[in-house]
């Protein structure tokens, strides 16, 4: 192995196709942690080791190790699951995790607070309803996003089918997952083969999304690999392929930056899998394995140049990219409440604050959704905005479902549109990357922002505000009209200039603001916006037009200006 590769590469190489010493780590009853190598390998199986950072110092004084637990993220292409699956997911969340389900910006759910001794039961539990967590995290293709809008039902179904196929095609082939978690037969040594990934998998995570214009709720351009469905008269013609999007950056390192994907060209549906595989293998062979900060596909493409990259993918896939079809996106948010589809079925989009499905005194989300799942005959769809659609409700059941939703406070009447468009990642106390609060900070911050907007007479304004606890970008903050990215405890960088459609990066406006400064800055901004905006002008557009920030066009060069 190249002596220049980073430690994670070595760990992958010696893991024997993702086995590592996971079984020994699980059997070690004296600690809630995994052996260090296994904490890397476990990600490929869908779970992270975390600890409650609020308690770290205190527990050390108490002669206790950190409060370790595992976060398990499932693979759920396009975020679709059945009511039966939901009931099982709910039960596992209540009995084997911390009593919540966390819907994510990648249209799946996470369990937090799973004890090491229970992780196997969790994986076996979801497996009973045909859900796995392979590649939930780790350096492989992650959960494939797909626009969940069910109103154009046939087209959506067809596109979702492709999302599912891409996800399955790009699954690791190792039997490690089945051996370790599902008590599958052990393969004799040397029999494993990873035709797509090879023994060290990818240099970094790899994200794929499928969008159906005009909705860009998947934030297509933030993904390593993107497919934009092109339909004519409701029939799927093929996809515009995009490559090289990604959010993650490192504070203070100007060689890292968020980047929007480039369009490579148009392909037919039957070429999708070959293109996806070629994209993965090019990244496998050309990605940076020395420095994980520069290992995402976006850097590989900036290194190779888009033309060379396109050529490499096309030749490996054996396709010719046609010119991309014109597309237009209008929104990156969700539409709440009931809508009726072309086939007469009804769909209810519920606002789930920060995606956290939990029972609170004022709102019994978990209980309410469980009751709905008990009678629902359609499906559930997790949106890329961490919300939930109760989809394909026959007209005669709408009233019944509505009344359950109402009884448990699930309907978001009176929730401002600022709040409804908002996103926050998990951050503290469990996320090991977090530098500042996000999910716990969002509700209180939005209370204040709403009051400000009211004061400036723009209470009904529609703008996308996103908060993350670190610059890695789980809640895609660099595509927000106003993004807050954690810098340190109680401190954030403030970004402005997204377009509300997910097609323009924002740019840093202020650095390292304390919470009071965040509020002060936002207050001035909203005041200015209320006074000087043009009719219908969005906040992000306003900040660029008035020169508060300059538009980012070549992030490698101008994101950090």
């Amino acid at each position, binding site marked *: 192995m190249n002596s220049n590769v980073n430690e994670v590469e070595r760990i992958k190489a010696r893991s024997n196709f993702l086995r590592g010493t996971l079984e020994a780590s699980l059997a070690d*009853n*004296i*600690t*809630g942690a995994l052996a260090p190598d296994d904490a890397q390998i476990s990600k490929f199986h869908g779970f992270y080791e975390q600890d409650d950072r609020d*308690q770290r110092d*205190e*527990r*050390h*004084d*108490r*002669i*206790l*190790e950190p*409060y370790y637990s595992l976060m398990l993220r499932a693979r759920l292409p396009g975020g679709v699951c059945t009511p039966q699956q939901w009931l099982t997911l709910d039960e596992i969340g209540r*009995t084997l995790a911390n009593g919540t389900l966390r819907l994510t910006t990648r249209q799946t759910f996470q369990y937090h607070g799973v*004890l090491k*001794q*229970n992780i196997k039961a969790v994986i076996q539990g979801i497996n009973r309803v045909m859900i796995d967590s392979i590649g939930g995290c780790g350096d492989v293709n992650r959960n494939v996003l797909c626009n969940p809008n069910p109103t154009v039902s046939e087209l959506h179904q067809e596109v979702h089918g492709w999302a599912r196929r891409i996800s399955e095609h790009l699954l690791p082939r190792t039997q490690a997952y089945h051996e370790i978690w599902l008590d599958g037969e052990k393969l004799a040594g040397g029999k494993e083969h990873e035709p797509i990934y090879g023994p060290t998998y990818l240099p970094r995570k790899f994200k794929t999304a499928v969008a159906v214009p005009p909705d860009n709720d998947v934030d297509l351009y933030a993904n390593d690999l993107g497919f934009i469905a092109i339909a004519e008269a409701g029939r799927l013609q093929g996809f515009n392929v995009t490559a090289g999007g990604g959010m993650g950056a490192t504070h203070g390192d100007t060689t890292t930056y968020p980047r929007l994907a480039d369009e490579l060209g148009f392909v037919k549906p039957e070429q999708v899998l070959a293109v996806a595989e070629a994209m993965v293998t090019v990244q496998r062979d050309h990605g940076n394995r020395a420095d994980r900060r520069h290992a995402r596909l976006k850097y590989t493409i900036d290194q190779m140049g888009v033309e060379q990259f396109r050529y490499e993918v096309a030749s490996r896939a054996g396709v010719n990219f046609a010119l991309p079809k014109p597309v237009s996106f209008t929104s990156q948010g969700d539409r709440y409440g009931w809508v009726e589809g072309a086939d007469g079925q009804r769909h209810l989009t519920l606002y789930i604050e920060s995606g956290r499905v939990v029972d609170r005194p004022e709102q019994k989300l978990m209980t309410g959704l469980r009751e709905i799942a008990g009678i629902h005959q359609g499906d559930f769809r997790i949106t890329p905005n961490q919300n939930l659609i109760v989809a394909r409700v026959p007209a005669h059941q709408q009233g019944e479902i509505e009344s359950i939703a109402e009884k448990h406070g699930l309907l978001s009447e009176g929730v401002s549109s600022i709040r409804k468009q908002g996103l926050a990642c998990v951050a503290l106390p469990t996320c090991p990357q977090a530098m500042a609060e996000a999910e716990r900070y969002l509700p209180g911050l939005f209370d204040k922002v709403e009051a400000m907007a009211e004061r400036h007479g723009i209470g009904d304004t529609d703008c996308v505000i996103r908060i993350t606890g670190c610059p890695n970008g789980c809640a895609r903050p660099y595509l927000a009209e106003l993004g807050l990215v954690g810098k340190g405890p109680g401190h954030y960088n403030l970004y402005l200039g997204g377009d509300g459609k997910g097609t323009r990066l924002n740019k840093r406006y202020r650095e390292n603001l304390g919470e009071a400064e965040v509020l002060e800055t936002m207050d001035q901004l909203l005041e200015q916006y209320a006074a000087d905006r043009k009719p219908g002008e969005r906040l992000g557009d306003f900040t660029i037009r008035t020169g508060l920030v300059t538009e980012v066009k070549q992030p490698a060069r101008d994101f950090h200006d």
Partner: protein
Amino acid sequence: MALSQLQTLTNPLDDQQLQRLQSALEGMSSIQLTWVGGYLAGLGSQQPQAVAAEAEMHQSITILFGSESGNARAIAGALAERAASRGFEAGLFSMDDYRIRELTKERLVLIVVSTHGEGDPPEGARDLHSYLHGKRAPRLDKLKYAVLGLGDSSYQHFCRTAKEFDNRLHELGAERLLERIDCDVDYQKPSDDWTEKALDLTKAHIPAQGPKVVPLTRAAAKIPQARYGQDNPYRARLLENQRITGRGAVGDIRHLILSIDPEAISYTPGDTLGVWFQNDPLLAGEVLSEIGLNGDARISVKGRESRLSDALLRHYELTRLHPALVRGWASLAKSDDLSEIAADQARLWEYIQQHQVIDLVNQYPARPSADEFAGLLCPLQPRLYSISSSQTEFEDEIHLTLCLLQYQAFGRNYQGGASGFLVERLGEDESLDVYLVENPCFRLPGGGDTSIIMIGAGTGVAPYRAFMQQRAVNNDKGANWLIFGNRHFHNDFLYQLEWQRYRKAGLLDRVDLAFSRDQSEKVYVQHRIHQNGAELYRWLEEGAHLYLCGASVMGGDVKQALIEVVSEQSGQSPEGAAEYLETLRRQGRFQQDLY
């Protein structure tokens, strides 16, 4: 000089005598050995003829004691001293050092025995107790005897062991010299009186023959003995009070570090610490105001005048009820309800277990005088805690591991008297009165190569922490196996980081954990014993010592599991397995500290 070297020297003892000497001295601390040395020297110098005469000689009085906390030992010692000063020949033995077959040759035996835990004999009294109650018990028609019991009447089986000895000796044909006395926690005066009475009566039966045996206590007076005890405690200082259970834990368990002078207190892993405490002033105030008494009222406590409020803090139990108090209060309050409860043994115990003094005075109003009220209260008793440090590691510290007893009932919060004092009221750098209670029945094996299995739940892990510190310092090669249980892995794995370090260093060979509430079905240490039965039996067969520490209920379950495991693994009947464990216990290879 090691005991084993005795054999190689020219010595006047035969093998049997040597063995007895060795077994008598095993496990003694250096202070004890010095003490015994002084005693033997005194014995030798004052009784030059004794050796020759011994073969035919039986002491005219044999004093046997069974002691857990050291009180019975102290009373028996004082009894022996007075007997000697009156000119009787007196032999003083801990029951487990006494040759049981000699009993049939005795003419007069005085027994001082305490009762332990759930009405059990103290560890040292168990063999004699079960021998007398078993089929092999001899007729004792020639014997005269008297029994002094020690106990704590706030426990249900007050002085049960003393009662059992008394009744059984009578059944076996022995004649009571004197009615048994059951001494409560304030035993000094009654035990003195009983001692005098017993010796008076002895005189009528056995003529004094001159002081041929030097009483132990007189010899003891000549040499250094432990300077501090229950009645003259050492003043230690609280250095640290650290909670060691996690945020979500039900139990608030503390690691306390006390500062001591190693010249004043010398302890061995396994020892316990007696702690004097003060009641909660708020609680005392509440009790007084409930009864309508003025805290400034003067009362007499142990012959000294004291303010009533001070006495409630320092001299009386306020958190434990007592049958006599309930009975007395029933008549003061003229309450039929309470009288009914007091008259029904079962209901009385239930009431005592579920209430404190404040409830009694609150639920059944009465207006006693200060003296009347104080007269009903039980004298404050020190509490005993297992020491969780080794002095070899922490020369001038004593570590304790204790749970703050607290609960809610009847709409109010309750706290344990001593744990509330130690955890909440005693500030860091403040002083407290303590004394060492040696626990010779809970000791590491003499040889460092011997493996040990440590079974404990909750704060029962305390002495094992001391054991591991000692074994680490000694660089002992014997394997160490911890089987520990508590509620939750995350919150209640006491001293987790230390166990991890021991294991990483290769000192802790096995750890099996039972966290009862981490899964739907409860898992306890006895389940782990079952699961690891084959391994456990193998360790025992290879000579491992087995330790069990924690609550009595857990202890019972564990012992049952051990019997089942031994039976399964050895193919013996459960009776055979029980005998196997019993043999280990007699050999000092199975030691218990249950409370």
